[in-house]
């Protein structure tokens, strides 16, 4: 017998030193969200950082996205579907970053959940298409209602009509109701968000497990390719831009796209040309809903959406026009992708017969039906719902700014959503009594103090995980959604000891091997610097970076698994990708000549000097 290796651990949350100037960070967030170790268990449990969805420090108001998402994910495991082995995921914030701790179902309770789960999941799987149609109706209704909510400064006096009609209310209640309703509607689509998501992952996992057993060592990307949708809503916004670019060429309107940074002038320029009005009509049609698309991931108040920053889509259109004129085929090779998916599926099928073949067909069929939701929901939730939500938040922020509570509408993000409710009452009270609100004397300094803390927290990267990991990570969602596997955790732990800079390894997310010059992007605003033929190196990518993928040769990300957006989009564009390297963007520098091996998941720096 060999001696048992000493169990290695990540630091305890209470032991990590607070960056200078960030003292008191705990109070930025609601009492139940910050790590305070009140129960004593926070320093014991294993936590991993969800830097995939929240790569940067939360401002207090922004925790809403994490809270609603992870709470609602959990409710479907624990209360709706009774997933046999998995309850939800506990979550807390440590120094501005979101940490998660999955909750397994005790072994002895699992069998009793199986029949309930079968009944519930079975209902969904057997009625998938009709239920999903219903889902779209619910989600769109939520968004439509959100659009009706408005936030405007209160008038100097109640309108005479209200007097005549005996309304007997001053309108402040509308402001407060609308705020409450906005939060509520965000929560509502948060619940809908997970109605199908967990099942989509489950169907995928079921097929995944089967394929790994039938074909030991089958690449993950082969399984992904067999179930991935090709004509997906998530790709629609990008496809719309391509169509508009080709239409502009066809109608001879390209001269109007010289300076797309000036949106008004560009659109006016198009209108002035013969046939321009017709193009504008198509453009306007594409905007609703497809421009409800963010260059971020929808979870931050600063995320920019195309519909409010039309210079972004117009810039992409300009770029597509140039590429199409240069002779490139800018449309996605949909027919080839379908043919490749069919080829892969058929070749694996050919290796099976009898019962195994029937099981393969059934499981793949189910996964292919259920899995595209995992991608498509993104458009409805992260892009569309959250785009409208953040716009309304800024609208309210502007009302406060006008009343002197703070300077810029976005400053409201430094308040928690509970504090905003308080500030609202402060505002309407002062307005009603004809006095002066306290906010303008309290918030500007407080916001500046908080801003300094958030800035200080941002100087420190989060620990990938906290405390002692379990011997094995077994919770399926943790592995699927976050790529947190036993191996991943061990690799993180090993990275501390031997930092071998030459080898950057991650997931072989999309096949192919290329060499080229790196372009390191840490923020969506830097995307315009990406040059044709470069290799994109980023912390994480968002689906709305779509147009960039037509330009680059390969992608390397720090965060994300086989099913991360970078992986999916690269497979879609036929580009090699290595995801979840942990350190790609901090190790590689712009201008370095690198080699990306999407078959083995390795990235090498060939010429270190850029």
């Amino acid at each position, binding site marked *: 017998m060999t001696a048992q290796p000493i169990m290695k651990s990540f630091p305890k949350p209470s032991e990590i030193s607070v960056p200078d100037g960030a003292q008191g960070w705990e109070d930025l967030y609601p009492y139940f969200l910050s790590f305070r170790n009140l129960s004593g268990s926070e320093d014991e449990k294993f936590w991993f950082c969800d830097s995939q969805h929240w790569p940067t420090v939360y401002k207090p108001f922004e925790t809403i996205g994490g809270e609603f998402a992870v709470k609602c994910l959990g409710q479907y495991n624990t209360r709706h579907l009774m997933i046999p082995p998995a309850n939800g995921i506990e979550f807390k914030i440590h120094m501005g970053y979101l940490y998660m701790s999955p909750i397994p179902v005790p072994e002895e309770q699992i069998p009793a959940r199986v029949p309930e789960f079968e009944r519930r999941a079975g209902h969904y799987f057997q009625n998938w298409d009709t239920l999903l149609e219903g889902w779209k109706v619910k989600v769109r209704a939520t968004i439509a209602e959100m659009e009706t909510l408005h936030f405007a400064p209160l008038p100097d006096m109640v309108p005479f009509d209200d007097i005549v009609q005996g309304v007997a209310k001053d309108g402040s209640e509308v402001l407060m109701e609308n705020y409450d309703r906005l939060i509520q509607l965000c929560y509502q689509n948060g619940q809908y968000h997970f109605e199908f998501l967990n099942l989509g992952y489950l169907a995928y996992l079921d097929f995944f497990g089967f394929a790994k057993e039938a074909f030991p060592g089958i690449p993950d990307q082969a399984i992904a390719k067999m179930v991935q949708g090709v004509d997906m809503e998530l790709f629609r916004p990008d496809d719309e831009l391509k169509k508009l670019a080709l239409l502009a060429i066809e109608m001879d309107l390209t001269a109007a796209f010289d300076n797309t940074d000036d949106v008004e002038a560009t659109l006016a320029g198009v209108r002035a040309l013969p046939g321009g009005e017709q193009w504008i009509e198509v453009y306007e049609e594409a905007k609703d809903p497809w421009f409800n698309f963010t260059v971020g991931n929808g979870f931050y108040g600063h995320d920019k959406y195309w519909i409010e920053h039309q210079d972004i889509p117009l810039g992409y259109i300009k770029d597509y026009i140039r590429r199409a004129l240069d002779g490139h085929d800018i449309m996605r090779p949909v027919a080839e992708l379908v043919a490749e998916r069919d080829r892969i599926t058929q070749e694996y099928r050919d290796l099976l017969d009898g019962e195994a073949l029937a099981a393969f067909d059934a499981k793949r069929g189910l996964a292919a039906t259920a899995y595209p939701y995992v991608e498509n929901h993104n458009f409805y939730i992260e892009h569309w719902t959250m785009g409208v939500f953040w716009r309304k938040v800024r609208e309210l922020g502007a009302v406060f700014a006008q009343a002197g509570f703070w300077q810029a509408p976005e400053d409201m993000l430094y308040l928690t959503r509970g504090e905003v409710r308080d500030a609202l009452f402060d505002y309407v009270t002062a307005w009603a009594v004809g006095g002066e609100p306290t906010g303008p004397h309290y918030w500007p300094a407080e916001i500046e103090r908080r801003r300094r803390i958030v800035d200080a927290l941002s100087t420190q990267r989060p620990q990938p995980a906290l405390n002692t990991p379990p011997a094995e990570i077994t919770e399926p969602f943790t592995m*699927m959604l976050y790529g947190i*596997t036993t191996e991943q955790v061990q690799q993180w732990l090993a990275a501390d000891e031997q930092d071998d800079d030459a080898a950057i390894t991650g997931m072989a997310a999309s096949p192919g091997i290329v060499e080229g010059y790196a372009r390191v992007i840490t923020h969506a605003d830097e995307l315009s610097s990406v040059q044709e033929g470069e290799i994109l190196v980023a912390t994480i990518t968002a689906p709305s970076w779509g147009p960039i993928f037509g330009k680059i040769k390969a992608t390397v990300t720090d965060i994300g698994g086989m099913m991360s957006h970078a992986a999916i989009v690269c497979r879609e564009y036929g580009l090699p990708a290595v995801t979840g390297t942990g350190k790609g963007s901090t190790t590689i520098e712009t201008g370095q000549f690198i080699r990306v091996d999407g078959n083995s998941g390795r990235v090498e720096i060939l010429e270190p000097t850029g």
Partner: protein
Amino acid sequence: MHDTQYIQFFDGGHDPDVEILGGKCSSLVSLTAAGMPVPPGFAVTTNTYRMFVHESGLDATIHRLLDGLDPDDVRSVDSRSAAIREEMLLRPVPDELRGQAYLAYHDLMERCGGSVPVAVRSSATAEDLPEASFAGQQDTYLWVTGMDNVTDHIRQCWASLYTSRAITYRLKNGIQNDGLSMAVAVQKMVNAATSGVAITLHPGTGDRSKVTIDASYGVGEMVVSGQVTPDNIMLDKVMLTIVSERLGDKHAELVPDPGSRQLVEREVDEARRNRRCLTDAQVVEVAQMAKRAEKHYGCPQDIEFAFDADLPDGQNLLLLQSRPETVHSVKIPEQKSKPAVGSGFSFGNLSALAATASKAAGTLPGHQHTHPHD
């Protein structure tokens, strides 16, 4: 023109008849017809052998020498084997046959743009058949130059039918000598920079979703006969991505010596030993070719390949052999889960799902699945 009764070029467009061509040549004819990159060459058919032993009276001699032979009497077997083989090398070949072979050789040289070395290989009618593997019991002669040497080696191939081992094997397995015959392949020699074998399944488990490649430097005989430890690469057959690989020592290579115009064994230097002998692109090319061979024959194949140092990239991969893989039967792991009727989802399996997924996630490329508490 060559009499197709005695000589058949691989690309002659004739049916690949095992009775006439033997296993190896028939496979080369069939693969050539399928458009696979087989080096040019011709078969000296079994009819040639038959006419030779008949016209020369050798058949009667063989019959007499083997009559009543006891397979366990090693000394008698050895001496009679030697006697038969000596006769085989000495008795005159009928002029007609000699003339046919000369013409064919001349044609081949012309086609290769001058005098090039050839490989002379036996192609037995019983060899390479799934039911009775005679593999390794017949001969291969590499880097043969000049007509005289070629005819000598054709005779030696014929003679290999009567090695002590072959005689004993047939006696013990009750195989008659009467119908015995052999064809011989004469084929342009590949100047192999690297070569090896590929099997269109996982040789350990029979998993047909894999292609396994063993490759080393130089001519492939050292890999086939196990004299070097080759690089071992396993690919997913559908995606053509590498699932696992192990670098072999590859300490020596068989390469042509320009001076002596022979193959010589040479030591491989440290740097070349320590890297894979095939590039990523070459690995994929080999696997694709193996897949084509499998598709052509409709069953798992075991191929021999080589990259020719004299040919440009894209045209330098050559197929030397393809035969049905006989050791492993087709095997699919038993399915533990049964699909639920109507839904396609194995609900009952879910309690085990976590474990399965964990195991599956552990097979991600580049990671070893380790248990800290093991």
